[in-house]
């Protein structure tokens, strides 16, 4: 396999990692601080994509559509948290799983009622629709480079928020010890709502950008949700740093695994077998990675909760 191909696949892995980070950051904060398993996180990703598509069509601009969809989804997240999810904090994880699974079904049906059963159109803006020459003779889609840049910028912004602002301090306090943080006078309810809305906004950003390169359709959140849970388990619940490292690891492992393993198997077996077996093992790589990390570090790489 040529070097240029490995570079391109490496960038693809980085791009997947960055998307997973956007999803995982919100999910890990919600799990770490509120102890809430939220399966409906994928639905917020889907709503973000659909809203981006709708606003982009109205305003005839992908960027404006995305900028509008993120706060809109954050608001929906806040509404969801105050109305439905608040009752779940006191309950055990299984109840939370069942309830939020019900929310998945609810949002899938709602989206279908509002937008119809067919997939919806969303494509990158004109100035990002072409390719960029990353090396002489090697091109890479501009939109994917933009996604990588945006994702890394958001990671930086999130670090700043958590490490350097008052809200970030409250979040970190809540993540370490919720009860003590409440006893010290931090308004836990308000913090929770803000954290949830933040997670929803990040999911919407991921969904809007993903929708431009993938398909915007009902049920699009479920696939990425599974990967996101793998990421937060590997990274450690409640840790945004863990979410970043975990996401990049999973993104690279999944992409390179899917691409390199069939090649590796192709050296040993017939092409048809290599494709089938190599592909199957390639898709298992991230779960093997998760199992490996848990064996060595049961709380994940940067597990924060006591």
């Amino acid at each position: 396999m040529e070097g240029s191909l490995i570079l391109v696949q490496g960038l693809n892995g980085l791009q997947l990692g960055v998307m997973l980070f956007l999803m995982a950051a919100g999910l890990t904060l919600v799990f770490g601080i509120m102890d809430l398993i939220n399966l409906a996180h994928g639905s917020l990703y889907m709503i973000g994509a659909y809203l981006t598509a709708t606003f982009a069509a109205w305003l005839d601009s992908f960027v404006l559509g995305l900028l509008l969809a993120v706060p809109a989804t954050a608001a929906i997240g806040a509404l969801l948290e105050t109305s439905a999810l608040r009752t779940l904090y006191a309950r055990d994880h299984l109840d939370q799983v069942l309830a939020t699974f019900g929310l998945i079904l609810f949002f899938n049906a709602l989206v279908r009622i509002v937008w119809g059963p067919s997939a919806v159109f969303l494509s990158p803006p004109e100035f990002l629709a072409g390719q960029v020459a990353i090396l002489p003779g090697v091109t890479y889609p501009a939109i994917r480079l933009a996604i990588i840049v945006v994702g890394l910028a958001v990671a930086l912004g999130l670090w700043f928020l958590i490490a350097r602002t008052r809200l970030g301090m409250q979040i970190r306090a809540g993540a370490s010890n919720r009860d003590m943080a409440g006893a010290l006078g931090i308004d836990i309810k308000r913090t929770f709502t803000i954290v949830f809305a933040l997670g929803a906004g990040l999911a919407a950003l991921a969904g809007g950008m993903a929708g431009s390169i993938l398909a915007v359709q009902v049920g699009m959140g479920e696939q990425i949700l599974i990967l996101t849970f793998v990421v937060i388990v590997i990274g450690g619940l409640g840790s945004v740093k863990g979410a970043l490292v975990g996401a990049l690891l999973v993104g690279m492992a999944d992409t390179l695994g899917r691409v390199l393993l069939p090649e590796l198997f192709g050296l040993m077996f017939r092409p048809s077998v290599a494709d089938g077996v190599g592909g199957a093992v390639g898709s298992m790589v991230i779960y093997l990675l998760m199992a490996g990390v848990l064996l060595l570090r049961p709380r994940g790489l940067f597990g924060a909760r006591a």
Partner: protein
Amino acid sequence: MNHGTPLAAAVAVCGTMTIGAALAEDLTIGMITTLSGPGASLGVDIRDGFQLGIEHLDGKLGPFDAKVVEADDQQKPDVAVQLTERMLSREGADIITGTVWSNLALAMLPAVARADKIYLSPNAGPSQLAGEQCNRHFFNVAFQNDGTHEAVGKHVADAGIRKVWLMAPNYPAGQDALRGFRRYYDQGGGEVVDEVYTQLGQLDYSAEIANIQAAKPDAVYFFYPGGMGIAFMKQWAQAGAGKEVKLFGSGFSLSQDILPAVGDAALGLENAANWSPDVDNEVNARFVETFREKYGRTPSLYAAQGYDAALFVDAAAKAAGSKDTTMLIDALAKAKVDGTRGPLELNRNHFVIQDYYLREVVKDDEGKLTNKIKGVIFEDHGDAYIEQCAM
């Protein structure tokens, strides 16, 4: 109590019985299709096309009143089988129809055959039911799954293209698709550079597209239904791969329900299908116009198949004059219908014989994406499995 009441009651009862005898019988159709989830646009189109057909037939199928009972199979075989049994026992369905997916059809057919009723497929056409496992209770008025791919294969070979790269998801329909393509492409003596099977449901094809750009074949043929196809075509355009490699698809990947989601990335792509909105006959013209008026969108080939299914049931009910299954089966097998695809009849394995068109994606007068016929690839095309059918 005075004398008038019992007499009046008796008269009323006799009157109702007379009216009851004059009312036509119902022919019950169990419309079990996918109305939710990512695959819903196909099921919704089939249902809408079928219902429009019933409307154009003034609510009657032959001498009977049409009674269509709808249900959502959610693309799950177990749900589909449960619904089939419920339709047959509780609703008294005479004909089961609507299924989009071959795996569901294969699961549902035994229940229908056991109940000695008819299964009329408006879409699913697995090779087993065309060949070895052909069944007198099963009818397909849509296509045999390989047909569209065979058509593209023949066109690509005829166009003189010699180095082709194939892609499909790794599941039975994907393997059938590429096998069907090769059945006609290989006859032209061209080379298949690589035959790549990706994970079912995979949405990111950047790795595969990068491989293709490195290998530089003359053309790529892909079969990615639904969301997979939308993602693939968008990423193909974003990678600029179309500048050096020509992309061919099946009619399914470029059907009317998918085109709006793909956008300009689909413009100019050649594909094959058994129908196009511009097939030139009166039935189709009326179908497309009234569908647009009623539903506010251009119909897809799934809707056209649903419409033709209604016409087939009507023709069979007219000829049989009864709901007896054996008579209906005979009548269906011999039915000749003027459908949206022109004059149609069924082969001895109960699969429809039809033309396949070469289509290209263009923008219509209103700037919306649609398909336009560029030529005919196959005329009166049967299927490759009929020799294995003992019927």
